[in-house]
């Protein structure tokens, strides 16, 4: 499992694209928003937590098809499937690698981009915390979507259609934590629910992803 993880991380860093592109996309989305809604500071600081969350979500979504597509094409996914490693383990490691290459950088980039959106000061910590808690869920759910569509040519659009509705609860609670943090309200309830979703999907969804992947490899 460790070998698989280091291999995926190496590939993501050295093959280019995986590591930087998600971040660059996050930056672009955040920069585009003021162009769209105008540069008024009050407006921006009100919607900043939500924008950061949506930007992170889209950046996650864009990099999802890289999780399995390349391994599927060159056949290494078949090799992995015959390796003495449970499919659930493979799926979990893939999700972890995706989170390290996409989710984690987003968490660190969010406060920097928050400056651009004049994010209120008390919100910084909550944006970072909510993203740190929520992005693993995004990666795991996304892995399920990627596993579903791995056999389909040009399945990227279909995958977005399948994955985005599944992201709804995570987004609601995550953005709620950030918003309440920005307004100085109590964040405990949505934060706990967000953590609940994260742990729940980490615990259960790999089984579904593995089942789906087995069907696709049949």
């Amino acid at each position, binding site marked *: 499992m460790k070998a698989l993880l280091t291999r995926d991380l190496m590939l993501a860093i050295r093959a280019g694209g995986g590591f930087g592109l998600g971040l660059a996309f996050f930056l672009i989305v955040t920069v585009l928003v003021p162009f769209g809604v105008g540069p008024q500071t009050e407006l921006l600081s009100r919607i900043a937590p939500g924008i950061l969350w949506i930007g992170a979500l889209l950046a996650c979504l864009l990099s999802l098809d890289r999780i399995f597509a390349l391994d599927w094409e060159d056949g290494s996914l078949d090799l992995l499937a015959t390796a003495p490693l449970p499919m659930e383990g493979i799926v979990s490691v893939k999700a972890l690698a995706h989170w390290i290459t996409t989710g984690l950088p987003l968490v660190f980039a969010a406060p920097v981009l928050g400056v651009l959106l004049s994010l209120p000061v008390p919100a910084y910590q909550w944006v970072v915390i909510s993203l740190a808690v929520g992005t693993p869920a995004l990666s795991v759910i996304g892995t*399920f979507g990627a596993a*579903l*569509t791995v*056999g*389909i040519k040009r*399945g990227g659009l*279909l995958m977005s*259609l*399948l994955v*985005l*509705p*599944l992201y*709804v*609860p995570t987004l*609601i*609670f995550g953005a*709620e934590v950030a918003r309440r943090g920005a307004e100085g309200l109590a964040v405990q309830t*949505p934060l706990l*629910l967000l953590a609940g*979703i994260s742990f729940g999907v980490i615990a259960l*969804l790999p089984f*579904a992803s593995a*089942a*789906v992947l087995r*069907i*696709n490899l*049949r």
Partner: protein
Amino acid sequence: MSLWEYANPVKFIRTTDKVLPWVWALTGICLVTGLVWGFFFTPDDFRQGSTVKIIYIHVPSALMAINAWLMMLVASLIWIVRRHHVSALAARAAAPVGAVMTMIALATGAFWGQPMWGTWWAWDPRLTSFLILFLFYLGYMALWEAIENDDTAADLTSILCLVGSVFAILSRYAVNFWNQGLHQGATLSLDKEENISDVFWFPLLVCIAGFVLLFIALVFLRTQTEIRARRTRALLAREGQG
């Protein structure tokens, strides 16, 4: 004699062929009676005026939108556990019907909301969760269409249906988080003495029965079509080889 005999496609088609005309007839009777009764022979509501009559389409279609998904969930489970092709095809057949029911519920809700709440749409928990349900239907149907191998498609969509159900319920409670919203709480429930005034209640019941029967008829018909289409494809494939 058990329920599983109907998992045999021949038996299924033979039985539904016999049953279908009756279901269609009953559907017609219920819908016509319920709608005519509701539209023309019930009084206007004291505050809502004649807009209250949207209830005869809105409530039954909303009910069926949820029940169609439940039926797909059960059919998917049967497919995963017992691998009866009829059940997978029934789930596939139910999806577009459910999606249309969801759309009808959303549209009639908008027509009702405009004069009553002064807005076509609000990000109210119930409205939002129905919109999300609609997205789930779209994804489910798109996945069926995208995969060429029938069995793979059935397997993948049934797992999507299971996972989707969990997330649909999660979303339902997540959107509750915002606020109560404009939509009223549950009006119809089984354990109350009187839900709404009997004048509205009886035609509504007939309409609900009509929509349930319509759903059953459409699902039977579409499942038959799917079975026959698959049989034709198998025959054509055999011709091609021989």
